[in-house]
C-alpha cells in the first residue's frame, strides 16, 4: 500500500474505492446481486458465525448464486446471534437472526431465490448517520 500524500488524495482514494465497491456502485453491483453481511464480533463468533459464513460462501458457489459475503462488527442483535443482513437488488436490507445451517438454507431457498421471508426476521432496523 502506498502512503496517502494529501487530504485531496485521501478523498480521491475514497471516491475510487466507492466506484469499485459492490455496495456503492451500480455497475459493480450488477454482477453481484446478492449482498450478505455477517456480524462477527465476539458474540457472533462465539455463536458460530464463522462456520455460517463459510457455509454460505460454499453454498452460494454450489448453487451458482452471485453473492458477496463479508464479515462486519457487532450489529447489536446479540440476543439473536448468529445474525446476518441480506440485501437483494432494489430491496431494503433484511436482517435475519438465529441463523443455523438450516436457517441459512431457508434464507437461500426462500428469500434469496424466491423473495419469501422465512421466520426469524429482525424487524425495524435502526438509523445510522450518513457522514457526507
Amino acid at each position, binding site marked *: 500500500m502506498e502512503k496517502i*500524500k494529501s487530504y485531496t488524495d*485521501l478523498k480521491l482514494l*475514497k471516491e475510487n474505492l466507492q466506484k469499485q465497491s459492490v455496495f456503492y456502485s451500480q455497475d459493480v453491483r450488477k454482477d453481484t446481486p446478492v449482498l450478505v453481511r455477517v456480524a462477527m*464480533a465476539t458474540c457472533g463468533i462465539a455463536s458460530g458465525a464463522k462456520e455460517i459464513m463459510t457455509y454460505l460462501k460454499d453454498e452460494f458457489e454450489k448453487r451458482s448464486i452471485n453473492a458477496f459475503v*463479508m464479515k462486519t462488527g*457487532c450489529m*447489536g*442483535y*446479540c440476543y439473536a446471534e448468529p445474525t446476518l443482513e441480506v440485501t437483494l437488488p432494489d430491496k431494503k436490507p433484511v436482517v435475519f437472526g438465529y441463523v443455523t445451517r438450516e436457517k441459512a438454507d431457508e434464507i437461500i431457498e426462500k428469500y434469496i431465490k424466491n423473495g419469501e421471508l422465512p421466520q426469524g426476521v429482525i424487524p425495524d432496523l435502526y438509523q445510522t448517520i450518513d457522514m457526507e
Partner: protein
Amino acid sequence: MNQKQLHIALRNCGKIDPEDINEAIIHNAYEALGKVVTEMQPLEVIGIIKLSGLRGRGGAGFPTGLKWELANKSKGNEKYVVCNADEGDPGAFMDRSVLEGDPHSVIEAMAICGYCIGAAKGLVYIRAEYPLAIERLKLAIKQAYEYGLLGENILGSNFSFNIELKYGAGAFVCGEETALIHSMEGQRGEPTFRPPFPAEAGYLGKPTNVNNVETYANIPAIILKGADWFNKIGTEKSKGTKVFALAGKINNVGLIEVPMGTTLQEVIFDIGGGIRGGKEFKAVQTGGPSGGCLTKKHLPTPIDYENLTANGSMMGSGGMIVMDEDDCMVAMAKYYLDFTVEESCGKCSPCRIGNKRLYEILNKITEGLGTMEDLTLLRNLSNVIKDTSLCQLGGSSPNPVLSTLDNFYDEYLAHIKEHRCPASQCKNLIHYYILEENCVGCMACARNCPVNAISGERKQLHTIDQSICIKCGICLEKCKFNAVEVK
C-alpha cells in the same frame, strides 16, 4: 421499535469489515483528520468540540472540549493522548464492540486530539481480556501506518502522530484515569490525588488527555457533520447519543445507541422487547458497580447525565442490567460489593476496610442473621465511604447499597424481620417443599437429589429433609407434576 435508535458512535459497526482499512475509508474514515490537519487550527477544532456539547462517555460526563482545551493550554511540548479501553464494568461491552467493529474511528479521533493538544504520541490502554478487539485494533493501526495516516507528516502536513498499545491485567481500578496512567508507567495501578489533573500532569508527569473509546468514536462525526448537527440531538445538558449494553432479564439483549432523552421505558420495553418470560420488571441497574437501581416509578425518566444522578444512579459507561421479580435486591447489592471488595486497590482505608464491612453486613442479611441496627450501620458507613475515599471506586461503591435501601427497604425488612427473601433467591431463607396434592411418588426428585435429602416410597408422598437440603433446585427442575414448591 428500533427506529428509536440513532447510530453515531456505532455508525460503521455492522456495516464495514473492521479488518480492511479501505472499507473504513469508503465510509469517510480519516476525512475528519484530513480536514483538521489541512484546513483548521487546534483551537478552532477544540471550539467545535466544545460547541457540540460532547461529554465523556466513560461515565463521569466531563465536557470533552473543555478537557482538550485544558491539555492544549498546558505548557510543554511532550504531551500524550490516552484512550481508556479498560471497560471494567461487569456486563458492559460498548467499547469492545466499537473496537471490534470500527477501530479506525478511535485511531482517527486520537490523532485529531493529538493535533489539538500538541501531542505526538497516543496510547491505548486496553484490557487483556479483549483478544479480538486487540487483534483488530493492532491490524487497524498497522494498516493506518501503511497508508501514512499515522506516523510522520500525516497527509502531507507537519503533524506526526504515533500510537502504541498498553495492556491491562484485569484490574477494575485501572479504569480510573490516574490508576490507568500509573499502570501504563509500570507502577501498581493505584489512584493518586487530583489536582493535578492529567491535563496538567499525567503520563510520565506530562500533560495527558484521557478519554473513553466511545467519546473518541463520536469525534470524526462531529468534525464532518458539525457541532450544530450534534447539539440538536439529545437534551439541554446531555447532547448526542449514548451506547448502552442491555443485559439481564430482558428479551433483546444486545447493543443499542439512542439519543439522550430517550426514556427508560422506551429502552427496556420498546427497543429491549420487555422482560423475558413475561415476568414483572423490577429494577434496572445503570452505571455498574458505581450506579444505583432505578425502579418502575423511574421508567418515564428521560435518560441523561443529570436525570440519572438525580434519581440515585448514574449514567456510567453504559451497562444496563435489567432485573425481574425473581431477583433479590439485597443479593444484588451484595454481588456488587463482592466485586468492589475484590477490585479495591487497598490504598485508602475507607474503601479497603469499609467496603469489606459493607459486604459482611449484606452477607449477614442474606443469611437471615441481619438486625435493624445493621440497616443504620449500612447507611452511615456507606456515606462515610463515599465522602472519604480517594477515588471514585470507593466513592461510588456504596451506591448499590444506598439505592437498594432507598427503593427496596421492604426487601431488607423481610430478610431481617421475617427471615424471608421475597424473590426466593437467598439460599438460607428459602425452603423447598413437596406438595402433597401434586406428588405422585414417581421418585424422580429423590433419584436426582445430589445429597439424598428426599425420601419416599414409590407412589407415596415424598418429603425433603430440610437439614440436609442444599437448595440446589434440581428437584424443582426434575419434577414433572409441579409438586415442588420454593418458599
